[in-house]
């Protein structure tokens, strides 16, 4: 699949590398025991360490280390037995220590890869350079007072994993797929809650353009994007901006940019003269982190089934296409729901594709309308299984089933009960259907004549009339057969 974009003069290739900042799912911070809960009152989750009081020292939270290792395993990456925490020195009001503790030369996780899936069934590997742990900063609140800035340190010291990719991404869509895939893996591993709205997952985008086959161009970095929509917008805007400059004979200035979500444009964050020299050096308050291979081995064993494995299983066991399987497995809770529907009745194993469709179309649209997560779906996986089985057994038609599903969504009742209560059971009794067909043909003799004289399309009209008479309950296949038979006899 070619991703080249056309400028006014030439074809261009966009080259993208991503730095994803994922908040480690952990009750307490990376170097202190303060809570990480989101949305608490400002400065209510700040320890002496987080506020950088004199003489306070960081202590590594071993749970965060385990979470980072698990993530590394999930990214098929090399886990480094030796890693070092460094100080990244710079001044900012919401950075209480005057430095961020991060990992520079020796990250905890090395090279890995993730694969992304396209609609046409193909896949592509995106290589991971490294994953390192670092502290989040606090938050400066500029909008609370006309002349003052307030600082909220609740976030200060929260553990982040920075996942750095190689520049293997070639379009905004690929970037979207990549982030979704990373998010999916982290959520399967339960190492990040994946909540982009709350800032648990943010990305910096490194982007450059080049003519196909040429060396990499000069890149710009777009900082701190927290939605896939904005990431795609920012990439497309920035690529266009760079292409225009180059086609007019200009050169790209390496720069750090911010994306304005209102204007849809990128603009420089700081000029070159203001560029930071972070003066990284190993944090002397922390010893190098040495991880026993036994701990890593134990964590490897604790890794749950990941999206790629499930995807493979779905393709092999249920005959789903690679893309369908990837859509279904992207969100662990969706995949869990799917599994649970299939498991509810052996008979459904052959109908996996139907189950998948019912989940991703009908159920999704109901959930989306009411803004409910699938894990809280009012329709249990067991009941959805029952509904699909009723369709399979011709007890109700697919069309009726959609109405039943809506009813189930509201009443939380079993489909069987709704069907009985409302008399929606499909009519498969041939004599009953024959009667209906006879009535319809009798009432529409002119149409019958037209049909017989060659207007085949009228069959649909007869089907519709019969269905209407049966209140939609007639088994469509039996109805079709009887109708055709009766019409042929009239000939």
């Amino acid at each position, binding site marked *: 699949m070619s991703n080249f974009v056309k400028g006014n003069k030439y074809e261009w290739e966009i080259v993208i590398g991503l730095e994803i900042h994922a908040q480690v799912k952990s009750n307490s911070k990376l170097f202190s025991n303060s809570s990480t809960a989101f949305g608490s009152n400002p400065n209510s989750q700040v320890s*002496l360490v987080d506020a950088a009081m004199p003489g306070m020292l960081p202590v590594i939270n071993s749970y965060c280390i385990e979470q980072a290792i698990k993530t590394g395993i999930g990214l098929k990456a090399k886990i480094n037995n030796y890693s070092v925490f460094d100080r990244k*020195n710079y001044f900012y009001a919401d950075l209480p220590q005057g430095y961020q503790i991060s990992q520079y030369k020796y990250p905890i996780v090395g090279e890995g890869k993730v694969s992304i899936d396209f609609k046409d069934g193909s896949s592509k590997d995106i290589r991971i350079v490294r994953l390192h742990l670092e502290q989040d900063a606090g938050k400066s609140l500029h909008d609370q007072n006309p002349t003052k800035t307030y600082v909220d340190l609740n976030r200060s010291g929260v553990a982040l994993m920075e996942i750095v990719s190689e520049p293997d991404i070639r379009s905004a869509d690929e970037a979207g797929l990549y982030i979704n895939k990373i998010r999916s893996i982290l959520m399967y591993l339960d190492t990040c809650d994946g909540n982009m709205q709350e800032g648990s997952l943010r990305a910096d985008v490194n982007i450059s353009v080049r003519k196909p086959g040429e060396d990499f161009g000069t890149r710009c970095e777009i900082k701190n994007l927290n939605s896939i929509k904005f990431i795609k917008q920012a990439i497309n805007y920035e690529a266009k901006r760079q292409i225009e400059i180059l086609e007019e004979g200009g050169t790209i200035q390496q720069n750090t940019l911010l994306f304005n979500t209102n204007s849809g444009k990128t603009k420089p964050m700081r000029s070159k003269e203001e560029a930071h020299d972070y003066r990284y050096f190993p944090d002397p308050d922390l010893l190098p982190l040495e991880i026993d291979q036994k701990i890593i081995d134990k964590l490897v064993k604790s890794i749950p089934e990941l999206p790629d494995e499930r995807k493979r299983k779905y393709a092999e066991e249920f005959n789903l296409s690679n893309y369908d399987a990837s859509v279904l497995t992207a969100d662990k809770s969706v995949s869990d729901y799917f599994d649970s529907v299939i498991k509810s009745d052996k008979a459904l194993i052959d109908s996996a594709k139907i189950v998948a469709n019912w989940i991703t179309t009908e159920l999704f649209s109901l959930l989306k309308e009411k803004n409910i997560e699938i894990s809280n779906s009012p329709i249990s996986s067991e009941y959805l299984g029952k509904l699909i089985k009723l369709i399979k057994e011709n007890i109700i038609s697919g069309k009726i089933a959609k109405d039943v599903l809506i009813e189930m969504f509201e009443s939380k009742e079993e489909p069987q009960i709704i069907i009985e209560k409302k008399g929606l059971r499909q009519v498969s009794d041939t004599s009953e259907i024959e009667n209906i067909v006879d009535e319809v043909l009798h009432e529409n003799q002119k149409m019958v004549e037209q049909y017989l004289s060659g207007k085949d399309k009228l069959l649909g009209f007869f089907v519709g009339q019969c269905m209407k008479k049966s209140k939609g309950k007639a088994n469509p296949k039996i109805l079709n057969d009887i109708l055709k038979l009766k019409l042929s006899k009239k000939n």
Partner: protein
Amino acid sequence: MEFKSINQLKSLLDENKISVKEIAQTYIKKIKEKKDLNIFIYFDENIIDDQVKEIEKLPNNKKLKGIPIAVKDLFCTKNMPTTAASKILENFNPTYESFVTQKLINEGSLFVGKTNLDEFAMGSATNTSYFGNTINPLSNHDIPLAPGGSSGGSAAAVAADLCLGSTGTDTGGSIRQPASFCGVVGIKPTYGLCSRWGIAAFASSLDQAGIFSKNVTDASILLEEIAGHDERDSTSSNVAIPNYSKQLNSDLNGKTIGIPKEYTVDGISDEINAVWDDAIKSLEKKGAKIKHISLPHTKYALPTYYIIAPAEASSNLARYDGVKYGFRAEEAKSLDEMYEMTRSEGFGKEVKRRILIGTYVLSAGYYDAYYLKAQKVRKLIANDFIETFKDCELILTPTAPSAAFPLNEKQDDPIKMYLNDVFTVPASLAGIPGISIPYGKNKSGLPLGIQLLGKHFNEQEIFNAAFALEKDYE
């Protein structure tokens, strides 16, 4: 009234010959009398009275019940402000108690006040303090002398008999050198023996808490109280702390003591070398074997130290930015201006000098040539000691290149000032323990110190040899 030792005072207290209140009153009086020496940054009779009430309730088996202790004003204390002798922390009242001072409180110590120091422990004369110089109590009337530094206030407090012991911190000699200048005992234990939790940081990989006292026994009593593992300091070691004072033993038979040739430095006065010789002879007499050794990388110690310590300091002191606590310049019109003004006005000259040096050596393009190289040399220096200690238990050297110098000397020559640390810095870089004990006097009657260095966590061996040498001047 002068009390000679912790054990003496403790016995008086146990026999009800003196009360905690009387001890407090005695020392309050002494401190007031010596006010001119500017030993304390913080001294408040009310705070002492409050403590007396609490301490009186404690059982007599509390090891330090009623023992008057002075605290270097780098240790954060809940009931007294903590300044690090800097304007930037003027009026800072910690809500927490440092590990070391908490341990002393737990055993019933009576804190008499917070002692003066060089600003953020950066200096060798207690003359960079925002709160003015401390004067060495041993000065004659005409020429005020420096008490050494950075823990000059704590050393002077013991020398002036304003307490029986005091806490200090030693980053490159800040306990041992002032101990030598003031004629008291000062021990810097192994890096990691005492938790750094609650001590305002200067250079994290070197800072270590320690003790000043009138004699070796008291130093051993106090050290065994403040040592110990602390989960809140990742560099604190989890080792068993011996009962140093009970195990004190002046028998040196079978011990080998190394005399490093690199510590014979040009320009060092004969008096210093004479004292060193005396101590060597005495050790020999007491049964120790003397071995002439070489620590070949010694000459690189001072430049190495003056790269690593400022580098760490430049980062450690970044938190003093006017945002959260301490001094803030109010006239600033932007965030950057607030930083610039706060830190320009809040820090003194020496602190700013070291922040500049530290920032420079960590800068892109200079990091490898300075900081990284210094770390490598530091390893070599540490290896020198490790190799040497394969053949000897202890190393004996002078503590400082001179006796206490006049206050105004070396003020404007930082390099000359830095040379004060020449004998103390190598042990700091290696993280090994060292003690300075007074051993003789110069022609002017000023005390001179000698330094004993030992293996990591072998403070007992140091105490024992110091205990033996101490007897020469009893």
